[in-house]
């Protein structure tokens, strides 16, 4: 059975902290270790910032929807903006020597580095949805064997 938590924020940077607080609670619930929880938090923050800044262009009348689903040891986070969308393939590679000193363009790279899966899609009612997945590994466990244990059903 999946649990899900949803929140919707206005496109204001101060609400990134709110999304971050919920993220920390969710990663605590799942038992991610501190390092992994920190990188999940960073990935969610980067995604929400992108939604506010690039997706919604800071229009406070455009909301950002954030949804967390927990399915066993797997956390999936969806972040939806109301922007016109973008082609993720056109984002410059931040590791290219030409881009190394570019002050922008590292957010999605960090998300892809720290999460197990990251993809982008168009929402049928408009906007872009970022989907990020992180699975809890055995080493994230705090003394339990939930990852290796038999399934509940």
């Amino acid at each position: 059975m999946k649990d899900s938590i949803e929140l919707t924020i206005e496109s204001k940077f101060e609400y990134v902290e709110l999304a971050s607080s919920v993220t920390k609670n969710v990663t605590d619930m799942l038992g991610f270790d501190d390092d992994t929880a920190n990188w999940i938090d960073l990935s969610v923050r980067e995604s929400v910032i992108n939604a506010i800044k690039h997706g919604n262009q800071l229009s406070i009348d455009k909301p950002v929807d954030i949804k967390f689903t927990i399915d066993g040891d797997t956390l999936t986070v969806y972040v939806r903006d109301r922007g016109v969308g973008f082609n993720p393939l056109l984002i410059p590679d931040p590791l290219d020597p030409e881009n190394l000193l570019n002050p922008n363009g590292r957010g999605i790279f960090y998300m892809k580095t720290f999460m197990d899966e990251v993809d982008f899609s168009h929402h049928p009612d408009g906007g872009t949805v970022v989907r990020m997945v992180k699975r809890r590994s055995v080493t994230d466990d705090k003394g339990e064997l939930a990852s290796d244990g038999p399934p509940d059903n």
Partner: protein
Amino acid sequence: MAHLTINERNAGNVTILDLSGKITIGEGSVQLRDAVRKLLEQGHKNLLIDLGQVDYVDSSGIGELVSCYTTTKNQGGQLKLLNLTKKIKDLLSITKLLTVFETFESESEAVSSFGG
């Protein structure tokens, strides 16, 4: 609220900025940018940023460090980093920025590296 505190002090010909708090989009990044620009305008060209008390940096904060580095270099100065936390080191490392910044764990070694 999350803020960035910046304290400035001098060690010889080096200006050390002791940072504490968060360098994130919005206030932290802007504060750092303003502090570095002001120092450069005042003629301080050797800048050492102590990140030991910075507990959070996002991609905007990393971008701001890059921007400050470039601005300082373009004005004939040097900007170096001191006391990277593990998280900041990881963020710089995976984006190959440890090949760009000179980083130090010892303040005296960092200050000496600027030369007389």
